[in-house]
């Protein structure tokens, strides 16, 4: 990864144009040609520096349900509960964190009502409580992660 790659990652986290030749329109900003921008992004994707390239959709705006849920699981049950939770296609991300609340997952469902039913099913299958922490407000200022 060189300084041009870093400029691309920093400069293209939003604002990719919607037109016939969007890379051509963007390349000049990084002082390179269209073909080079395309091959650099492909390379960054292949090497895993970029996890995604494209439109980021807003689930709730589409009428879907989205929430963050947490569980406090005893160490001896952690593997079993992980398998149950991860088996739900509605579970998009699941992280282990260092805390008594040691499992944190994002639920994305087709309808808001489905959130509650998935949570109840997980509680019934695992025997553990699920703490539902939907966002009440988002303080969103665009993505600005810099490398």
């Amino acid at each position, binding site marked *: 990864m060189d300084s041009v790659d870093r400029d691309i990652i920093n400069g293209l986290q939003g604002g990719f144009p919607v037109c016939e030749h969007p890379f051509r329109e963007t390349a000049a900003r990084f002082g390179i040609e269209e073909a080079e921008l395309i091959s650099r992004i492909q390379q960054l994707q292949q090497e895993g520096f970029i996890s995604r390239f494209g439109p*980021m959709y807003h689930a709730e705006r589409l009428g879907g349900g989205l929430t963050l849920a947490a569980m406090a699981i005893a160490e001896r049950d952690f593997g079993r509960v992980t398998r149950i939770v991860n088996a739900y296609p509605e579970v998009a991300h699941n992280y282990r964190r260092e805390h008594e609340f040691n499992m944190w997952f994002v639920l994305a469902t087709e309808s808001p009502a489905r959130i509650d039913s998935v949570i109840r099913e997980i509680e019934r299958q695992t025997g553990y409580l699920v703490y539902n*922490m939907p966002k009440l407000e988002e303080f969103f200022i665009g993505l600005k992660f810099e490398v």
Partner: protein
Amino acid sequence: MASASAKPVPRLDIVMSEATVYRPDEKDLLIIEATQGGLPVSPTPYHDIAEALDMDPEDVMQRVRTMQEHGVIRRIGIVPNHYKLGYTANGMSVWDVDDRHIRELGRKIGRLDFVSHCYHRPRHLPEWPYNLFAMVHGRNRDEVFSKVKTIADMLGDARREYQVLFSTEILKKTGLRLS
């Protein structure tokens, strides 16, 4: 690695109104389905999508623009992989903040360039007293802690308890499936 120059200008106070729900029609849903995993990295990505869906490219691009205007598409671009880029410490800082000040403070915290997500979420008393969440990324835990200290100072008197929950394992990671 971080450079002070060319910092994107923060877009202030884009707070979502949850009331507006855009109803995508069948063609929109096809576009969403085809692009939620990403755009083709090719000279004419929207035209490629249109061809795959047997749609008119102008129609596809117009629909993408409309979805952007309605906030259905938040933005179009790169999602960096923090871990791979060396930001291996991921701390979810959680704060018990006076409800009367949470909006004003949340907006300030969300504006910090090292906070990738910032939300007001419900407490679950007594086990979970925290109502403000701010995700902080750093190259190591010390870097995260020093950034968390900055947040603590900004919150001042409105702050009661807080904690930083570090992630130790990704148990599952897939893209959000929307349709």
